[in-house]
């Protein structure tokens, strides 16, 4: 469902080049929940951004749903819209919009008919009572669940989560990863999540490890 082939990213700074990702091969199929672990600066964010088409690789390629990311920004926007959902560590909800409006936003950009989709998604993440609340009036866990509902609005094939629990306590972190597990199982979503937390890894099908831009497969934890 999401695939990286010899994926490399080099950031060129005035007096050095940082090889953030080195010839990584990676794959996550439909219904699979994969966790990316690794120390800070290992290249986790870089990998997820390349998989989700937010950034272009220096070498190699990334594909989603069998389709390689185009160089054309317009086509990339359309692909992101149709196939990928993003969840970030800082939630990144729009503070002036209610939870419901935040979830509706991707639908608004994809020109899809809204109907009850946003309502259903908020209900699915257990926030039916927070629909009209704005982000400043919500807890961290509630904001992250809203962000997950938003990521799911366009019915993506792949959910990419970059340290989604970095700002959450243990209980909320667990709830988020359990939700990912459920989404992979019940909707066949490919979920790729980066985390520092080894305890959460138990919920995944697979764990891959990144160190200095080099990706290593680990055996399945279960």
């Amino acid at each position, binding site marked *: 469902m999401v695939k990286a082939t010899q994926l490399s990213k080099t950031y060129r700074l005035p007096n050095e080049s940082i090889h953030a990702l080195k010839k990584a091969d990676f794959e996550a199929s439909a219904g699979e929940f994969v966790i990316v672990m690794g120390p800070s600066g290992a290249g986790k964010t870089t990998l997820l951004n390349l998989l989700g088409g937010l950034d272009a690789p220096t070498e190699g390629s990334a594909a989603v749903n069998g389709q390689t990311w185009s160089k054309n920004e317009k086509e990339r*926007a359309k692909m*992101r819209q149709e196939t990928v959902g993003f969840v*970030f560590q800082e939630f990144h909800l729009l503070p002036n919009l209610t939870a419901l409006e935040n979830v509706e936003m991707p639908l608004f950009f994809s020109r899809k008919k809204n109907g009850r989709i946003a309502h259903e998604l908020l209900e699915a993440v257990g926030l039916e009572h927070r629909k009209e609340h704005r982000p400043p009036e919500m807890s961290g866990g509630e904001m992250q669940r809203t962000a997950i509902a938003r990521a799911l609005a*366009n019915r993506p094939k792949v959910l990419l989560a970059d340290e989604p629990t970095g700002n959450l306590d243990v209980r909320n972190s667990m709830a988020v990863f359990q939700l990912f597990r459920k989404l992979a199982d019940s909707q066949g979503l490919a979920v790729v999540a980066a985390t520092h937390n080894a305890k959460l890894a138990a919920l995944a099908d697979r764990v891959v490890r990144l160190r200095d831009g080099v990706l290593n497969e680990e055996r399945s934890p279960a």
Partner: protein
Amino acid sequence: MRFFKLSWKNLFRRKTRTALTLAGVAASAAVLVSLLGFNNGYQNALEEDVDRLGYQMLVTAKGCPYEAATMMLSGSADLRYMNAETAQIIMDDPRVDKSMPQLIHASYDPEREATGIYMGVTNAYRELKPWMEFKEGEWLTPGAADEVVLGYEAAELDQRSPGDYILVHGTNETLKVVGIFERSGSQDDAIAFVRMETLQRIFPRLENKLTGIGVKLKELDATSAFEADLYEIPDIQVVTMARVKQTIMGLVSSARILVMSVAAIALIVAAVGVINTILMSVFERTQEIGIMKAMGASKADIFRLIWSETTLICAGGGFIGCAFALAAAQIVESLVRNALSYAPNGPIISITVGLMAACAAGAVLLGMAAGLYPAARAASMRPIEAIRKGT
């Protein structure tokens, strides 16, 4: 429509800033509407004033017409006069439809601190100005030598009514008031009308003299040819009303160009203010824009979003400005009137629905133009950089 809702909400996030920007646009729009309203109104009022004279051409004794006017107003008796014989030649010309000989005598009365203006006329006055209506009384009786009809203001100044007698300043003569005109909104309101012979009898030095003749031609097209012929007669000059309009409009238009440039600058300042505000809010929302792109927003989506914010601000400001200009028109009118050397009698600031619609449309266009750059900047932000910048 959903785009506008989102833009609307964004504008409400920084209320003070939005309000200040709105005020800037509104102020420029108000200035512009008032100026254009003045442009409209002044010309119309002036033309109406000139048309209300009833004649298209005024023939006077040679001399500077401005000089004549000032002398007349300052009360000097040294007006230039033309001979009745010369006048008769003009009046007998077959191309003349109607003519109105007039003889003006003005004298300043220091006790009343006012200038009394007497105009000797004939019955032609009534024919050329049929719209002059009587508030009280009636027109001069044929053959009666000591009657006077007062303009509205001339009567009001001394609280005169028909039947009163007035003493002609500087003489022992008295005149009986027989009629008082309604207010006409023209210079005639300040004048006391007597028969030509009466004025010449009271002031014997005016015997056989005229200040001028107002001429109305049978055909308007013949004006220039007739004017050229008149210059064959020595010692007279011709003032056509078309030229009066031109001269006054010329005086006003130089001032108008200055004021219009001020308005144009105000508009540019407003536009720069809007660009600055929106650009600032775009930079502040760099991360948000990145997120929207990650959520599937295209370049065009972001462009439209920012563009409609700018357009909304300018449209709102334009609307408020128009409303304000309309509300303040009376005040502006009196300010402008005091500042002008010659202000016509009608309303000189005319703010029409069409003018307001044009200005509102102009404000929307300004917003669209001002929004181009910030919107393009926002649209071209790369999602990854935009997201990182905020953290």
